[in-house]
């Protein structure tokens, strides 16, 4: 049951998001991203020329994620989280070392961006959210909301808003409604199936709620409101979209835990 849900959920997300992590076109996609990320941070960087090692690494990463995406399990999530932690540390080191040379830390920022995009597969398996909540990665993720590169912060917002969206975790009023009652006298398959579905919906929602409470108790609410204040809609289209995504995320949070 779970495998089926994961697979279909994942394909739905991907087709909607144009999310192409499984295909070998990943390097190209990331070059596009390089163009986008390039503008605010550095004008001197030459995009479009990743080294051979990088290409190899990206291909390896793409293959790895291709093999793990269809059936995400606890190990898969942990791997994702570990990768994220590594990329964050790498990025911080690069930023500390070459604070005046954006071109030197840009690459690590792109990788970080990639990893954040990859984490969206989690939305197809909300029952694994507790793994995220119980790891340090949630704190790391939230700390990225105050990252110097506002595009990274925006990426975190859209990731979190996808994870807490009602498409992923359901609606409180439905999930927490009283479970259907079984008639004691006769075994009705439809009734049992309905009960199982309702129970699963409730489990999924509770996991979503765990994430929401995790975000709140880790100081995420303050960071999100501060992030909203950093965005300037007059500056760029990305900032406008960032405001939209942040407002949506705040609404998801408020509605999950009224």
């Amino acid at each position, binding site marked *: *049951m*779970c495998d089926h849900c994961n697979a279909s959920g994942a394909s739905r997300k991907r087709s909607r998001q144009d999310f192409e992590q499984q295909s070998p076109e990943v390097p190209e996609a990331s070059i596009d991203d390089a163009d986008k990320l390039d503008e605010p941070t550095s004008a001197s960087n030459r995009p479009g020329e990743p080294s051979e090692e990088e290409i190899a690494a990206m291909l390896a990463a793409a293959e790895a994620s291709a093999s793990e995406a269809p059936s995400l*399990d*606890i190990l898969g999530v942990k791997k994702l989280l570990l990768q994220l932690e590594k990329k964050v540390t790498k990025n911080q080191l690069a930023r500390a070392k070459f604070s005046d040379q954006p071109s030197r830390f840009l690459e690590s920022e792109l990788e970080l961006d990639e990893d954040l995009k990859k984490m969206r597969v989690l939305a197809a398996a909300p*029952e*694994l959210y*507790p*793994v995220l*909540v*119980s790891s*340090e990665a949630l*704190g*790391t993720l*939230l*700390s990225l909301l105050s990252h110097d590169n506002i595009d990274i912060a925006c990426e975190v917002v859209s990731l979190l808003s996808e994870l807490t969206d009602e498409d992923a975790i359901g609606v409180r009023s439905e999930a927490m409604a009283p479970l259907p009652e079984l008639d004691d006298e006769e075994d009705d398959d439809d009734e049992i199936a309905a009960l199982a579905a309702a129970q699963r919906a409730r*489990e999924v929602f509770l*996991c979503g709620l*765990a994430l*929401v*409470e*995790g975000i*709140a*108790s*880790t*100081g995420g*609410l*303050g*960071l999100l*409101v*501060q992030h*909203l*204040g950093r965005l300037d*809609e007059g500056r760029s289209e990305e900032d*406008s979209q960032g*405001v*939209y995504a942040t*407002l*949506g995320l*705040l*609404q998801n*949070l*408020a*509605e*999950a*835990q*009224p």
Partner: protein
Amino acid sequence: MSAGSQFISSLAKYFRRCCSPFQTLSLRLPPPIPIPLCSSLAAVLCDPEATKARTPLLAFLLRRMRAKGFDTNLGAASELLSVLLSLGGASVAERLGGTTFHLPPAGAGSGPGHAVDGVEYLCEIANAYRKKAPGRGEEEEAVGNIFDALCCCLLVRANQDRFVAAEGTELMLRTVHAAGYARLGALKTLSYALAGNPRTGSALVRGGGLSAVFPAFMGKGEAHTRKTHGPETVPEEQEHAVGIVAALLQLLPPVHRAGDEAGTSRLRLLGKFREAGHEKVHRAVELYISFRDRVNAAALADDSDGEDDDEDSEAARRMRGELRYLRKLDAGLAVLQRLCVIIGALTADGVGNASAVDAGAGGSQPVTEGGVSSLCQELSLACRAKLYEQGGSLAAVADTLQEYASKLEDSIVSGSDESGESSSSAVIAAEAASGPQSASQAAELAYLKRLLPAIQEVSGLGA
């Protein structure tokens, strides 16, 4: 399958971590704010102390909603604000009303602006749509959200007073007169602003509100509402108009002496009912009859399938009673109750010697003018005549009011005493939404308690 056990073990880990302090978290984070799990996230989000943001969320949202020209983010901001207000309850409403914001000047300039409270700010935002027709879809939704937010604010008494001080009543009346898309929202806002607050009542009459409200009561705005909001919103308009008229009859102080300013408001209101051959009295009775039939039909509908009543346990019977109540609510019980208030007030208020409503406040003091009491007599007669002509009875009106009063009593008690059994009365408690509304509920209950004996007396005389 292993997924289940994985789920349980990861959940167990999560809960273990919840019990431990935050020492495992990354040092790069600001110190976490302990959030009591019982307080709603909506309330926390609106708390500038908790979020430590330079631009508090409410200020951000209001400023964003004030922006010139509609875009998607304005829609998102208005939606979030109305969600925060409806989920965060009184604490968010009080914060919004009690905070001073800087209202940017209406033009494109970015001057310092003048200081306003949140209620006045929202009124300013609503003012932009007084005449303007919003674009289809998202912008219409945003207008609805703005008025919803205002209504949530007005559940708090202090905000009702701020609303009156900010001349919100006048603004809403102008919006109703402008007869644009926002007319329905303005009527709704007025009915919320009136709930249990005599100040709004007299402000409304002073501002010429009777000429805005009664056309809606008479159903003259229905075609317009059907055109702008769709046919399903017509009953909503009816509900607001009936609610406003009932609240006015309840709130406006009785006429004590000639020239008494507060009393004149009531006189003007009663005068309206006399106009055009008592057409407004007749309308009230006709609406009452149609809602009575609808609600009775709904109450009977489920009686038929509950044949084995005596076998059922206490709990099942209570459950069935609750279901029936919900069904009646669906059929328009709330409107029926308000119509009964109108009919009760018209027939009994200010009529007869023991009519406590007129004399109640002042004891032997009131110098009731002959003209006033004859006006009351006239309306009472007209109302009773129409009621009997349509096949209604004052006793049935009194019964509905009695039931209404006991429901109000229950919800006030369960609101103040949270420990009441939650399982069975959950629906009703949720519907009554304890807290901010209880003050206006108490005022309504007090009025009913004075009105009921007066009705008994009048119906006794009439028999």
